[in-house]
């Protein structure tokens, strides 16, 4: 081991990686987000060969790799299958102030859960099995945040 290392003061280079991205939404999700943005509707698609219903819709069925080209409109209601109250804050990442609640909502009419915020309720009151409905933003831009959150069904 070189003894010259003993008197070297190790430097730290503070830096960033800062490259903007323009992600292609693609054919399947463009339809989903246009319907959400323009008509306030939540659509899923269904695989004709194995019957699986996906929300958000998929380009290919994850079970049989078929083309899920049957589209199904969803009522926008569902059941909380899991949730967490996030208590740490990451301003650059979190669109909500901690504490806020993520939930996996088993969507009525679909076979998959949708990850989203659970709102209009005290975090401590959120429970697995709670029935919820989607609350849409008035101003919508064509992305997942067009849904503000899911709130408990009255």
């Amino acid at each position, binding site marked *: 081991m070189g003894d010259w290392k003993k008197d070297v003061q190790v430097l730290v280079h503070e830096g960033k*990686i800062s490259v903007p*991205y*323009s*992600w*292609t939404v693609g*054919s399947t999700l463009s339809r989903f987000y246009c319907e959400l943005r323009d008509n306030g509707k939540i659509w899923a698609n269904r695989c004709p060969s194995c019957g699986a219903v996906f929300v958000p819709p998929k*380009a*290919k069925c994850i*079970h049989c*790799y078929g083309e899920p080209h049957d589209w199904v409109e969803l009522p926008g209601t569902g059941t909380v299958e899991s949730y967490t109250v996030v208590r740490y804050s990451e301003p650059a990442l979190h669109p909500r102030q901690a504490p806020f609640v993520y939930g996996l909502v088993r969507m009525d009419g679909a076979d998959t859960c949708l990850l989203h915020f659970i709102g209009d309720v005290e975090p401590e009151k959120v429970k697995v099995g709670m029935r919820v409905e989607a609350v849409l933003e008035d101003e919508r831009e064509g992305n997942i945040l067009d849904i503000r959150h899911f709130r408990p069904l009255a």
Partner: protein
Amino acid sequence: MGKRVGIIGVGQTHHAAKRLDASGVEIIAEAVTRALDDAALTIADIDAMVIGNMDHFENINYVDMWAVDGLGACMKPVFKVTTGGTTGTTVGACGYYHCASGLFDVVLAVGWEKNSESDTQAAIATCSNPALERDFFAGAIGPLATEYSMYMKAYGATEEDAAIVAARDRNNALNNPYAHSRQQVTVEDVLKSPMLSYPIKFLDMCPRSDGACAVIFAVEEKAKRLCAKPAWVHASVVRHDYTHFGDLEWTFMPTLERASAEAYKLAGITNPLKEFDVAELYLPASTCGVKWMDSLWFCEHGEAPKLVRKGTFQMDGELPINPSGGVISTNPIGATGLIRVGEAAWQIMGRAGARQVENVRKALATGFGGCSWSDVMILGADLP
């Protein structure tokens, strides 16, 4: 000893500057679906998958996990390999080793990139050392321009020689429906195009593309049963001997020379110019299509310009290079190396359509990237 392995199916997307109709998952699915069609297989026939791209072009961590929907890899073995520009040939080699090891019979290898989703120069610049090189990094074109100006001075190569290569590849692409850019081009057009970084001009340089390529490998027994004329893998060799851009030796290209020498030895090739019937080479600029021919042992150092001028590498020449139009016509970086392997395989399988070379028995495919990372793969119509 490992198993012998053949390529039985290849699928490519319609490559383009921007595929607005296809998200990353959809562009992968397009290539995979076409590869399955080409091999007349379904996803159930695939035993394992391997995928590769360059993270910072789309900013997706754990791409093998995110791509499961597009790959059809739900409840299947999958992982990711990535080595920069050579990611495509790295993925191809990985597909080969999956089968040759005997652990898997039929394996799907996919390379993809959507370069339209970020500023390629900015993303590529992050390959350099952040504290000591990144501020000065000027993209891949710098070293390529420098090495060719040195080569011109040392051996009398000319800008026109490079323009012949550029025109060759761009005109070849007219026969390739999948190529990103297909334009009738003359040598003069190339020489007159705007200078990017002396001596490399606009039409000498590769574009950046959205695209994906999927190649299906199979062990000998399966390949014989599932495909009339598999493209058998005879050799796969990689060399990468540099960690800093300043270490590169520019007079010739040692990593490509060492990798190709080793590959030829493994495949029993003694006179590559005569024994190969076609070559799909990773040439990011037309200047490489002159200088690097020396490093593939087609000729002595400095002799390449003569071969280029003689038309040796044209479609009707002794060794047609890049019937597909090459990297100058199509460059979705994570897929580019695998497109070389896929096109070489199609040439052997007789499925290269309008760009098919007659009676291809031996094909050469290469990959390039990083600072002088060189991959070489040799395919044959006969069993190795």
